[in-house]
């Protein structure tokens, strides 16, 4: 955007904010300097300018003025509502911008802070220096999927599912994005599989194509994006117990999850553990090599033996 164009748009905003009546295109052309002589060129430029204002989030209202289309910006729709922050609230506000440093949302975060400072809020541009939060949005699919979620548009993309070598085309109504342990996930309704699905952004290949109109995606009221993404399997209602020998003074990690630990003899302690998922627990116990010996139940014992044999195979 050139200085001239910035200047013209600035005039346009001020002019449309100041008017109570709707201003017609002809009236706007007279009031705002910088529009071209030719009618055609003016029309094209005015269309682009309107689009530009909408993209900046400026609420442009269209109405009728003496049978002609007119425009104005209602101040109550334009203005940031009154906002009063206590000093401790203002102090943590700056942290928000630090979270997105060097990401696609960095600009939006600093733009928001400009506006809040303009509303009279004093923020430390750097925020507290003893807390440094960061979230990455490195996955190439992030910007397009974020926009699709925000705008409620259906997307299609190539996806390589876990354990598959060939990518498949997916058609998805995006419900939301969530990040866990540094990875972003898309949760949405898979139109081909006719069910909610979770997609890891790092497994999306190539370009994400948004299709159809904005607002076409309806997110179900009661949907919990994070629950779908991170708790794919409900924990079984029936919880079992395991008895595990731990070498005295060792297997400290296991002791942290144990329900109870009691001494057996000079070499061993015995711990009671909860079993939610046999395979997962077996893998976690195998990590401690000969510092752990599973006594019971037999299926956990077998799973650990299998796990250790797997290391040798």
């Amino acid at each position, binding site marked *: 955007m050139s200085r001239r164009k910035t200047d013209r748009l600035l005039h346009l905003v001020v002019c449309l904010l100041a008017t109570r009546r709707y201003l017609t295109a002809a009236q706007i052309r*007279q009031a705002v300097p910088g529009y071209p002589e030719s009618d055609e060129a003016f029309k094209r430029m005015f269309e682009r300018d309107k689009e530009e204002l909408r993209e900046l*989030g400026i609420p442009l209202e269209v109405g009728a003025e003496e049978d002609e289309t007119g425009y104005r910006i209602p101040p109550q729709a334009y203005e940031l509502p009154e906002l009063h922050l206590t000093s401790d609230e203002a102090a943590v506000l700056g942290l928000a911008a630090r979270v997105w440093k060097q990401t696609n949302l960095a600009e939006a975060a600093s733009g928001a802070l400009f*506006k809040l400072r303009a509303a*009279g809020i004093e923020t430390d541009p750097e925020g507290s220096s003893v807390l440094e939060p960061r979230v990455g949005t490195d996955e190439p699919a992030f910007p397009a999927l974020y926009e699709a979620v925000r705008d409620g548009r259906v997307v299609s993309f190539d996806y390589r599912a876990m354990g598959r070598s060939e990518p498949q085309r997916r058609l998805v109504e995006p419900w*939301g994005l969530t990040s866990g342990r540094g990875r972003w996930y898309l949760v949405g309704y898979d139109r081909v599989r006719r069910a909610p699905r979770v997609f890891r952004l790092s497994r999306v290949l190539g370009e994400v194509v948004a299709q159809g109109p904005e607002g076409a995606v309806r997110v179900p009221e009661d949907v919990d994006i994070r629950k779908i993404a991170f708790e794919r399997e409900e924990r079984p209602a029936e919880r079992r117990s395991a008895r595990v020998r731990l070498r005295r003074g060792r297997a400290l990690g296991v002791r942290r999850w144990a329900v109870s630990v009691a001494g057996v003899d000079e070499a061993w302690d015995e711990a009671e553990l909860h079993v939610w998922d046999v395979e997962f627990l077996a*893998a976690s116990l195998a990590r401690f090599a000969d510092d752990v010996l599973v006594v019971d139940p037999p299926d956990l014992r077998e799973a650990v033996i299998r796990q250790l044999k797997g290391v*040798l195979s």
Partner: protein
Amino acid sequence: MRSSSTSADRLTRLLALVPYVVARETVSMSEAAEAFGVSERQLQDDLNLLWCLELRSPDPYCPIDLSYEGGEITVSEAESISRPLRLGADEAAALLVALRMLAELPGSAERDALTRLVAKLEAAAGEAAAAARQLSVDVDPRTGSLGVVQRALREERRLRLVYYVAGRDENTERDVDPMRVLVVDGRTYLEGWCRRAEAVRLFRMDQILEAEVLELPAEVPAGAERRDLDGGLFQGSASDVRATLELTPSGRWVADYYPCERVEELGEGRLRVVLLTSDARWVRSLALRLGEQGRVVAPVELAEGIRRDAERALALYA
């Protein structure tokens, strides 16, 4: 997430500049330039644009009157742009998602202020807050010692930690002079000067078993450097060990979970990865956990050590 960044930014800045000054009556050029992250020269050009603003119809008039004489900006007439523009969907999302994430950290001293701030911003953003509800960052809630660590930071005092080192399966006691708390990709860490290692160390908050604020002042040496997070949290060091692993399709998760120096497809969904680690014992525990999902191929001594570990463990069941 607009593409025409700098130019659209300028209009946004121009529209924020007038209310910024109005809210404060008078602001120095240097202060305003810093607040908006621009040079004073750029700021002067912005002010000139605003000052020259003239509508030509029906009668010519200048809606904005301002001056920046002597380096002090004052606005005597601001009319319709005396208030800032509402937050847009991206802006509301950037603020709300970040602040909600931080408000979820158990034990944090700022939790209460963050929760109140989120509520106020949601109300102020109105409809623009809708997109923010579809975006979230999950944080590991095991940050119980965070309050104690933050108190030590505030009071600039030394901490005594009992810290579990997973790679070695050891509880270690050490005195740490805290430098700052990092919340990176959902995990919380204390960065501090470890007096045992005599170096800057990162401690995962979920592995701090006990934390106590000592009656001693923190003494972080002048040369102690904070990590530059722009390069990622884990930066290899010269003393790191390289371990090469071959993974089956079901072991591919390793490449997603741990920072790899190299990742190579071997066909049929198998991978070869090179991991960098400061402690080879960590690779041993990873290999035992992987079972048949993957195996260490180099260094050879490490691979042999892992086999012996598995053999000794199996002997318990014989």
